[in-house]
């Protein structure tokens, strides 16, 4: 486990910024505790300082996952955001999309959301904008 380098931090923040914009500073600088990002076996974890101190005493091979996994770095050093970050991204999401109950299953199985399945959408959502999908 180690802290992220500058380049890695930049990559992670750029990805997160696509979904939550400038609200990342609310993740970095929280009023209820010091939270930080750590890299463990190419995966980026978000954890509190208390948990970090506990995890530091676990041997590296035995440590499975400290904190919440936000995503991982691929072999070519690209950052891929993971669905386990959703709980942290959802409250701060800038653009939200609500899917109707009928198309929910279809979306979960990987299909696109058609216009008929779209319940609500934040106005002024640009094309190719990163969004958080909600169910109605």
């Amino acid at each position: 486990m180690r802290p992220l380098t500058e380049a890695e931090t930049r990559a992670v923040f750029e990805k997160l910024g696509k979904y939550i914009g400038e609200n990342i500073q609310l993740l970095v600088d929280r009023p209820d505790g010091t939270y930080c990002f750590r890299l463990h076996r190419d995966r980026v974890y978000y954890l509190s300082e208390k948990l970090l101190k506990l995890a530091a005493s676990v041997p590296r091979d035995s440590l499975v996952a400290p904190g919440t996994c936000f995503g991982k770095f691929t072999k070519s050093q690209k950052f891929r955001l993971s669905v386990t970050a959703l709980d942290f991204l959802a409250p701060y999401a800038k653009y939200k999309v609500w899917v109707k109950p009928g198309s929910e299953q279809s979306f979960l199985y990987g299909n696109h959301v058609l216009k008929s399945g779209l319940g609500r959408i934040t106005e002024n959502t640009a094309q190719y904008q990163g969004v958080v999908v909600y169910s109605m």
Partner: protein
Amino acid sequence: MAAVRVEAMLAAAEEQEAEKRRSITVEKELELEYDLGNLLATDRNPPPAAALRGAGPRREALLQALARDNTQLLVSQLWELPAERAGGAGGPLVAQLPEPTFPLPREKPPPKPRPPTRWEQFARLKGIRRKKKTSLVWDEQAKEWRRRWGYRRAGGDPSRAWLAEVPAGADPEEDQFARLRREKRERVARNELNRLRNLARAHRAGSAVPAAPLHPTGHQDRDELRRVARVARVSTASLGRFQPRLPKEPAEPPSRSGGKKRRFEPLLGNLAAERSRQLELLRDMGSKKPVLDITRAVNKQLRQEEAEAAAANKGKKQSKRGKRGRRQQRPG
């Protein structure tokens, strides 16, 4: 009938022979100059005029024909060389090329002169010049000219010396023969050591990177300036450990392995500093976002134009437009 056919066949055969001979005989005004060692043939004939001017299929055809003729001549010359079968009876026919005569330019750059050895530097400093020594020395005992060193040298064979005087002031119990042998061994070892040192010095001097100018010239690029700044920072008595950083310089601990091994921040290091660094990074990233969102601006413009058009048509079909307008504007 048969005679006519036979004549036709002979004529065809004759034609084929002539064709074959034509393909391997080439007529040239000036003979080519051959350097078969380099497989080189030089043609001094002036090329046909049409081959010189302009580009086009005719020029291409002429040049190709020229190349074919010259290659034919070169190959004919190669076939006239003495040849033999390599690897026994069934092996390929191998021609023996003569020595190349055409001087080719140097392939690699010329070797650099080696740096002078320590003795050479000292000699140059003191102005000592080499004394030319004769190769033969007069040996009194043998009463003849003997070599200076080597086989049957002038001083007699050192291994057959049966007398070794104890020098004045030396320990009488000491074995003089052993001392002589030991001293020779030490001399040889010292000589060898110095030779290797000189060699190492020459090798190192050859591969040393030329030092970049350490004072700022007007035209240095960013990487060079960064390198120079690093050298300047490390050139203190404590090797840059207590040197204050420049405003925008990243706080990096100096890597002792010269940058070969990656070093990371400590796991539980100063978390407050890490947080502030990340916030600063976010600020830098945020400030570069474009202020003008093109899509939004275009949509705004379109809506404005629509509103104007609607206002212009206000006087005409008002009721109809109102109903339809309202229904169209709802899912917005």
